[in-house]
């Protein structure tokens, strides 16, 4: 144990006018942490039903300059992606997360899309990822890192496309967090959790908001509604991580 550590802790206890906490004090604080009780949460999203949350998520995401395409099945995703890229005059070439949740999407039906799977490198212009949850409260995407979901995909390319299933839309950040805790309190927390709200931006020059400071300039959300096949895939994955 370093000397600085002991001195800092001693200084804190000295300032608090007490020594180390007694066992009862420890137990009380440990219980507070273990309970991870929710603080008051805004009613904006929690008061809504599933449909209302979905609409709020879309409205809030658009407000921060994300773009949204809504499709009714996994089959429609490749076309939606290709059309978005064509409309924006982007290359039909993307790097995609090697995540099994995206395997239920029939990418081969749109052969003009060139897809590489893996992490992003400097040359990649467009990436496509799944998400862990989508938070209606502020139109925020919640992405987690892992072997199948590398973080570079979220930040290196100029355009980031995220596939969101409607059953992934939750009311609050806490709801998204609870979906992580399924496998036990904090065991297996991913290295990184990214809450992403719209594309990268800066106002550092004369308060002028410019998109695409260092991260993606474009954030495009493909929202898949009412698709049973994709949901099953998602449920199996969640079930597997719970076990």
């Amino acid at each position, binding site marked *: 144990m370093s000397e600085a550590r002991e001195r800092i802790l001693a200084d804190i206890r000295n300032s608090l006018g007490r020594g180390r906490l007694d066992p009862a004090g420890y137990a009380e604080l440990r219980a507070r942490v273990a309970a*991870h009780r929710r603080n008051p949460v805004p009613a904006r999203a929690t008061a809504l039903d599933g449909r209302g949350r979905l609409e709020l998520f879309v409205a809030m995401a658009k407000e921060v300059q994300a773009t949204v395409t809504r499709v009714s099945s996994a089959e429609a995703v490749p076309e939606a992606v290709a059309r978005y890229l064509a409309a924006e005059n982007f290359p039909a070439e993307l790097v995609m997360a090697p995540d099994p949740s995206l395997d239920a999407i029939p990418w081969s039906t749109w052969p003009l899309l060139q897809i590489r799977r893996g992490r992003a490198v400097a040359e990649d212009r467009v990436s496509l990822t799944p998400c862990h949850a989508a938070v209606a409260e502020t139109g925020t995407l919640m992405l987690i890192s892992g072997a199948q979901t590398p973080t570079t995909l*979220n930040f290196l390319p100029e355009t980031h496309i995220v596939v969101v299933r409607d059953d992934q839309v939750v009311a609050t950040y806490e709801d998204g967090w609870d979906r992580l805790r399924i496998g036990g309190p904090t065991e297996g927390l991913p290295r990184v959790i990214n809450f992403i709200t719209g594309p990268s931006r800066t106002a550092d020059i004369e308060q002028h908001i410019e998109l695409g400071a260092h991260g993606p300039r474009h954030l495009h959300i493909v929202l898949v509604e009412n698709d049973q096949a994709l949901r099953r895939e998602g449920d199996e994955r969640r079930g597997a991580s719970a076990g």
Partner: protein
Amino acid sequence: MLATSRNFKAAARAGLANDNLQRALGLARTGFPLRRRLAVERLPEFEALRDTGRSIKDHTLQHLDFYLELYEGKVAASGGKVHWARTSEEACAAVLQICRSAGAKIVTKGKSMVAEEIGLNDVLEANGITPVETDLGEYIIQLRHEPPSHIIAPAIHLVKEQVAETFRAEHHSLAPERLLVEPRQMCDEARAVLRPRFLAADVGITGANFLVAETGSSIIVTNEGNGDLTQTLPRIHIVMTSIEKLVPTFEDAATLLRLLARSATGQEFSSYTTISTGPRRAGDLDGPEQYHVVLLDNGRSAMIGTEFQDMLRCIRCSACINHCPVYAAVGGHAYGWVYPGPMGAVLTPSLIGIEQAGHLPNASTFCGRCESVCPVKIPLPKMMRHWREREYAKKLSPPVYRTGLSVWAWVARRPALYHALAAIASRALGWAAGERGRFRALPLAAGWTRVRDMPAPEGRSFHSLWAQCQKSAGAR
């Protein structure tokens, strides 16, 4: 960083006379408060969140030893390492040692006020390591060899023409005839210049907005995504932070996150809120191989249990700065150290001593806007008053001022004498001012009349009017 806070008065005068600064501040003066107000009006629970935010921080500070130990254990369990530092020197040494052990040549940095506080860039440069600031504002001022003038908008003192000038002077390899007029062009240029640096860096240093004890996680909140590239691409990630950033759980962090962006920029949520826990996992395709946290005290533990403890609740949102009429007039550089505005006026003397920072608690009109917008309800004016008392008790203020104050205090404690003298003075001043009703110059009041006229008292004093009202009310 070396403090020049003792020069506040001269620096403030220079700021008032600086046209570019006044133009730049003019843009910020209305924008920040308006956007914050709109965001707050959209969230009916905002007041309740402020109270909760305050109690979360108070609870954590009361048990800071417990939460620090819990946090350290969780960081270790996730494969990271915590380095404790009592002083700036120890913190710089810890960062330097990590960089050296990796043979680092280039270090990218996300915005970190603690790194500014400890003067990290100078230490790295002196040891042959190149620090590259990647936040656009920080990058601009690094090129200009200036300190930040605001804690979330470090280049807020500049207008775009100055940024263009700096880029032309520093980006030698780009075509001199290129167009550099609009902020868009400058952002694109900085993005293109910095991208290869991100990819080349050996170490990435970020700050932390919050540390979560329950999970051993650090949280950064940014809009540009530079912090994420900084901590994802290099082999080593160092989190440079301080002990008061702790919160117990993610739920507690979520409450403070709801307050932070709304109070800072008026956004509902910043573009990127990133929670990091340890180095890359087995099987991960990217992310740093090492995760270090350098945890700085630098005078903070000594604030606990004093009248300045509440300042440790600060979440560095800058709402107090954005709403301060003094800051809006003189800009951030006048404050002479890392933290400007009302939060700086309280924090700076706590960290570097009232002897160095005596002017700052006096740089306030006590209008109270800072406290009224603080997301964790820090009583900033009250604490500035405490500092003024300490300054007086330590005999640090000028003798004329101290004598004047003692005379005034002596008179003020004798109401009858005070009223009599006040009545004479106001009548005399009113008579002396004559038709004009104001003074161009007055003995003992040159500090006032040098920059504006002193209005003469009109009519009778409040006290005498009050007494008359009471009497006529009694008669009725």
